[in-house]
């Protein structure tokens, strides 16, 4: 520090063309952490392999069994239908919440408050037992008018219908918040320009605001889908034979709880992984500009490592 620095322009030209060969900083902490983690993993794997109660052969027997695969398909069906309902409702409720009409926006707010404020498990049971509240469902003029259709609630509210209603309506509340944040992220000037061109509020929403809100809406919707996949397991309480309940039915007979729960976990992990990869691509498609600020997930990192992006590849 005490020595006078060399004049700046003097050597710069000569030095900068040389390639830098510096001794890298050592990270002893990383090696220690790595060793500890390796040890823990080794212990866990060892116990998993040597402990017969894991029942790996049973896992193998049931992984592709007919009932498990059937349950898996029903889980996927529930996830897709509930998310579809949730997304449509979410857009609807979000637009309602932003309506200038206080009654309409008030209803939107109430919906979100009510459905986010009660556990989804309670909502599933509620829909399942709705026939106690309304034994018959009729379509016609309300308040005692003539009825066009009339049927027993017990026949209509099957476990599947109860599950779809509960999961879809509940998801609608969460999606509404996501969509609302997306809509609010679009610059107000966009809506004004559209309206000044003669578009109505709904046209503006559909053609100008929502498409641009997608950038903000899509990434959390991916998370919601993954979360929904796992939430569908709650439906086992109303005896709907999705993945978890299918496994429960099997182990209630053969008492192989742990192996069957491992089977179930493997399938959830497989589907979650596939969805995460899908989400990565959706984010790359819609999340331009905003993805920089988020930390990459493990899947994204693995994917990027396995398939490096080429310069100017995807536009």
């Amino acid at each position, binding site marked *: 520090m005490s020595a006078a620095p060399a004049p700046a322009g003097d050597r710069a030209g000569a030095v900068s063309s040389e390639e830098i060969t510096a001794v890298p900083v050592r990270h002893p902490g990383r090696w220690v952490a790595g060793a500890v983690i390796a040890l823990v993993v080794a212990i866990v794997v060892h116990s998993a392999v040597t402990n017969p109660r894991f029942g790996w052969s049973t896992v193998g027997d049931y992984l592709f069994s007919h009932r498990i695969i059937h349950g898996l398909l029903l889980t996927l069906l529930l996830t897709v239908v509930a998310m579809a309902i949730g997304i449509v409702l979410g857009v609807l409720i979000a637009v309602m919440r932003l309506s200038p009409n206080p009654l309409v926006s008030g209803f939107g707010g109430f919906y979100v408050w009510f459905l986010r404020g009660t556990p989804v498990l309670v909502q599933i049971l509620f829909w399942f037992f709705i026939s106690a509240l309304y034994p018959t469902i009729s379509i016609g003029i309300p308040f005692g008018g003539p009825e066009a259709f009339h049927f027993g609630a017990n026949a209509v509210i099957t476990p599947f219908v109860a599950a779809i209603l509960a999961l879809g309506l509940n998801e609608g509340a969460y999606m509404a918040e996501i969509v609302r944040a997306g809509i609010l992220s679009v610059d107000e000037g966009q809506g004004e*320009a559209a309206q*000044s061109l003669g578009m109505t509020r709904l046209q503006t929403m559909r053609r100008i605001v929502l498409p641009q809100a997608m950038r903000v809406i899509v990434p959390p919707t991916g998370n919601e889908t993954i979360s929904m996949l796992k939430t569908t397991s709650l439906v086992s309480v109303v005896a709907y034979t999705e993945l978890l309940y299918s496994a429960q039915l099997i182990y209630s007979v053969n008492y192989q709880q742990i192996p069957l729960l491992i089977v179930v976990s493997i399938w959830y992990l497989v589907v979650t992984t596939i969805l995460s990869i899908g989400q990565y691509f959706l984010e790359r498609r819609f999340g331009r500009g905003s993805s920089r600020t988020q930390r990459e997930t493990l899947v994204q990192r693995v994917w990027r490592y396995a398939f490096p992006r080429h310069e100017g590849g995807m536009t």
Partner: protein
Amino acid sequence: MSTQPMVKAEGIHKRFGRLEVLRGIDLTVQAGEVTCLIGPSGSGKSTFLRCINHLEKIQAGRLWVDGELVGYRQQGDRLYELKESEVARKRAEIGMVFQHFNLFGHMTALQNVIEAPCLVKRAKRGEAITRATELLGRVGLAEKLHVYPSQLSGGQKQRVAIARALAMEPKLMLFDEPTSALDPELVGEVLDVIKGLAADGMTMLVVTHEMGFAREVADTVVFMDDGVVVESGPPEAVLGNPQHARTQDFLGKVLA
């Protein structure tokens, strides 16, 4: 053409909560004329422009565009609010250009221009494209039809925005500081487009700080301050020989 004014404002009052932004605006824009609206920041120029196509509701006064009341229908001495679709139909006849362009970011220049004609006027897509191509050519952007706004310069964006407004074949164009967000070297290309429109006889109300442009193009210059029209008249008079102290003060600052 009839001789009725394109815009007629009488005693316009506009409040935001307790803040009174417009305090009795009287103003007339004749068809085929260019009116430049000048005045200090915060004097209510943008708000007044937004009232003209009913983006803001006025609290008192009357506002007519082409002889029709803005936002209301009068029957006897009662006013009835117009339905949203009726308001939208009236807005479609008035073009508006914003300081920050407000181009639709998810659409190319061409898509920006054809969107409203196809959606609002139900124009055939092919015809809309032909017309949009022509309009974009007229503002010097024939090469940029399929380019997204993020890849355009400020001056190019504003010219697309002008083409987008013209595609609706408006009878009145409102400009809110169309060059204020531009780098100095890009101001000229936008002003040239507006001058071209003036030469074609388009009726325009232009909020601007470009005094040279106002002097050259305006038929009338209106000076607004603190929510009222202080002085208006031909540019030589208002800009060359202002009568009011507030106008003199403002011009002194702007032209300094």
